[in-house]
């Protein structure tokens, strides 16, 4: 069976500090990978998605970046955090099926607080 892990679970960082959040998937190969952010009152917002190693697409311009150094590893980074980066970050994976029936499965999330 497939499992998805996110690390760390919670993080408190000062404004201007760097960020690195990690997501790993087990039990599948060549998954599509996604980063979402859930902020209070704003719902769930897609940030990045990746269909393969080194292939990243950005949905929202911001000071965050994503990388996929390995098939089942997805990293979310920032060089300098802003207060507005606070939120709950969720990683998801899917099998990459054609059409609409490509269910996304979510990880446990990382709670980021920027002070």
């Amino acid at each position, binding site marked *: 069976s497939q499992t998805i892990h996110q690390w760390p679970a919670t993080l408190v960082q000062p404004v201007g500090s760097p960020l690195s959040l990690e997501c790993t998937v087990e039990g599948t190969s060549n998954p*599509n990978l996604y980063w979402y952010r859930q902020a209070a009152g704003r719902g769930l*917002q897609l940030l990045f*998605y990746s*269909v393969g190693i080194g292939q990243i697409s950005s*949905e929202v311009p911001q000071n965050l970046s994503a990388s996929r150094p390995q098939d089942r590893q997805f990293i979310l980074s920032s060089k300098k955090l802003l207060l507005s980066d606070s939120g709950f970050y969720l990683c*998801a994976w899917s099998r990459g099926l054609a*059409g609409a029936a490509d269910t*996304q499965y979510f990880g446990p*999330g990382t*709670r980021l607080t920027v002070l």
Partner: protein
Amino acid sequence: SQELEQSPQSLIVQEGKNLTINCTSSKTLYGLYWYKQKYGEGLIFLMMLQKGGEEKSHEKITAKLDEKKQQSSLHITASQPSHAGIYLCGAATMYSGGGADGLTFGKGTHLIIQP
């Protein structure tokens, strides 16, 4: 872009009662996903609907997609404390291209079950 509106925003129901949550799209839905989220945790996949008029059930939860594929409802029968949480609907875009486009989500419905 596609927008999803969920109603109600919050719902308090006495244990044992039935309830319905609605999800309305501004455009035709090509894939509609229902997820449940416990506070501070990741999303758990419930059901996916694709065809107009489709209905799926899992235990005491039934989801329907209307014939015009612009509205979905989630119905819980004989609610239990374990049903408490946030229910989110997510929509696939017209062309998912292997699911890589990500999902657009509603803002969620907060469900509280009173004993």
